[in-house]
């Protein structure tokens, strides 16, 4: 779950220089911060501490769990469920790349070419949010249903032969295959890619395109040397907003996948709600969080967009 990790910056009151500042005025910024801090403590910090302590407990459901600093749970969880971790990262990466490939042209179109259609297209991008995440994912079950028009068309065009060979699908089915899960993830997180991309593309001064053209850059070179580098902040935040929730997602794998496509989110869900092995579930959650933090940090460092954001 995405939590509010950043409180709004305190608004420093500008007290007049000649008068000694009153005490109430000096405390105002802290009072303003209080609701945010309370929210963070109750809904972020406390659950984290609780989960952290759960992850090092041992015991059983009948006798109750006790904190025994049993860190081996982490190692056990990782060695048992590493395939699901790997799958989560792969699926999330694949859907992030698909989102970027689909979202970039659309964001570019909205930012530079849409003219008076801009608002309409933006509404169309956001419109799916008006329906529940679950319902939208269930709809994909119908779209990709066996013997349905989509599968039929893919079969006729021999696309399925290729995807079968790649191991993304099996037989005449798309549903319950990795392809279906990645499609679902891509669809569900696409707006999170388009919106930041659009924001950073839209901020680019149109005169930079003219200047590049004036300096002998052909349209595609202008894109490669000017537009794309300047949209990097949008690419970075778009990929993060897609990759992070996709890596932790379990709904798509649950509804569109099979037992062979289980992601780490599904494992955590099962451990918590069916097997009721809370320490393992908590340990898995922390491993996932640490892994994502590590990958994101490396990614941001490597992309070198600090002075563009």
């Amino acid at each position: 779950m995405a939590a509010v990790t950043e409180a709004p910056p305190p608004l420093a009151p500008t007290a007049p220089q000649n008068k000694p500042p009153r005490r109430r005025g000096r405390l105002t910024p802290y009072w303003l911060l209080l609701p945010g801090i309370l929210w963070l403590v109750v809904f972020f910090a406390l659950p984290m501490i609780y989960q952290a302590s759960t992850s090092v407990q041992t015991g059983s459901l009948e006798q109750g769990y006790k904190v025994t600093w049993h860190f081996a749970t982490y190692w056990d969880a990782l060695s048992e469920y590493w395939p699901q971790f790997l799958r989560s990262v792969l699926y999330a990466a694949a859907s992030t790349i698909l989102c970027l490939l689909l979202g970039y042209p659309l964001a570019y179109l909205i930012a530079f070419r849409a003219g008076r259609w801009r608002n309409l297209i933006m509404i169309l991008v956001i419109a799916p949010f008006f329906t529940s995440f679950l319902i939208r994912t269930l709809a994909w079950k119908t779209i990709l249903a066996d013997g349905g028009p989509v599968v039929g068309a893919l079969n006729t065009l021999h696309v399925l032969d290729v995807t079968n060979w790649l191991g993304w699908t099996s037989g005449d089915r798309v549903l319950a295959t990795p392809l279906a899960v990645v499609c679902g993830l891509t669809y569900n997180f696409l707006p999170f890619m388009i919106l930041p991309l659009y924001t950073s593309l839209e901020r680019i001064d149109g005169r930079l395109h003219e200047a590049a053209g004036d300096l002998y850059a052909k349209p595609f070179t202008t894109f490669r040397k000017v537009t794309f580098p300047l949209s990097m902040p949008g690419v970075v935040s778009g990929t993060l907003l897609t990759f992070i929730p996709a890596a932790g997602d379990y709904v798509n794998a649950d509804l569109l996948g099979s037992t062979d496509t289980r992601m780490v989110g599904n494992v955590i869900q099962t451990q918590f709600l069916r097997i009721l092995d809370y320490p393992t579930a908590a340990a898995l959650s922390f491993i996932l969080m640490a892994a994502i933090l590590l990958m994101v940090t490396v990614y941001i460092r490597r992309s070198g967009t600090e002075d563009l954001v």
Partner: protein
Amino acid sequence: MKTTPETTDHGGDVRLTGISKRYGAFTAVHPLDLTVPQGSFFALLGASGCGKTTTLRMIAGLEEPSEGTVHLGDQDVTHLPPYKRPVNTVFQSYALFPHLDIFENVAFGLRRRGIKGVKKQVEEMLELVQLGEQARKKPHQLSGGQQQRVAVARALINHPKVLLLDEPLGAMDLKLRRQMQLELKRIQTEVGITFVHVTHDQEEAMTMADTVAVMNAGRVEQLGTPTDLYENPRTTFVANFLGTSNFVEAEIDAHSGEEIVVKAGGGKLVLPAARCSAPTTTGGKVLVGVRPEKVSLTHADDAGAIPAGRNRITGRIADSSFIGVSTQYVIDSPVCPDFEVYAQNIDRDPRLVPGTEVVVHWNPAHTFGLDATQDIDAGVESVEEEAA
């Protein structure tokens, strides 16, 4: 130092033939013909919205003309995209690439044309604009004046046939602007490339350019050297946009050879026929104009001491303001309600205070005549608008 030795004398001329630009029902530029000779510093001067920037953008290829052709030397470039034209632009807000450092910004054009070993050229160009030390900084780390010089360097390094400047000094404060005007003029003299400079600042156009085209409402009102435009404006717009002019509505009384005598109010004024661009039939109306600095002011009591043969108008001082080098008087005269006089502060007459009756007089040779059918105040508002 001519940078295009392979071309003939007129190889770098910019020729616009019947060029126009329409946006739907709005005509930004009416069909115009214009030739900018190679190596000249040419200014397009006018208020905002007069079509000067559109004209420039049509030369750059950023705007396609609705009709007409653009020639660079012998080459018809009307339908060439900007990246195929031997023309470079210095944009209004510089449009430097924020993600590239100064060196890469300047090298951009060379790299796009696949030129290898750009280091020496870029360093030389940065020396020319005195930014050698700043090569590895990003644009946002430079001041406005430095960014502007980078923009000039980035364009000039490509040795374009023509350098287009779109109000490049617009965002600068007055002092920096004066400095950059001299700088640009120096660079132009040094490299010998044709400069086409768009500006709304008449002083800027006059100090920098060899030739100025004054534009108004999508048309070229008048084209000439700064001195010619100032001394012999052919329309009230030019007369008011370039400096200040006083106009007296008059009726032609007699036309004798080189001189025209006109009646204004009760008196008579004389102007040289050569400087009258209006039809000169007897009884016809004409606007008699004179620049405020060419006029002298004498107390009414000393009117007898004014030499004979000078044009004179009587009036009362409505206002005076002392501005150091000169004192500016506004004279309320029956023939012209706000006649302006700029008197140099050499021998100030202490009696000349508001309310005093005075005689305004000037050498008839400094008078010009314009067609009376036009708006006397044309061009006045545009100047104020820009100043606001």
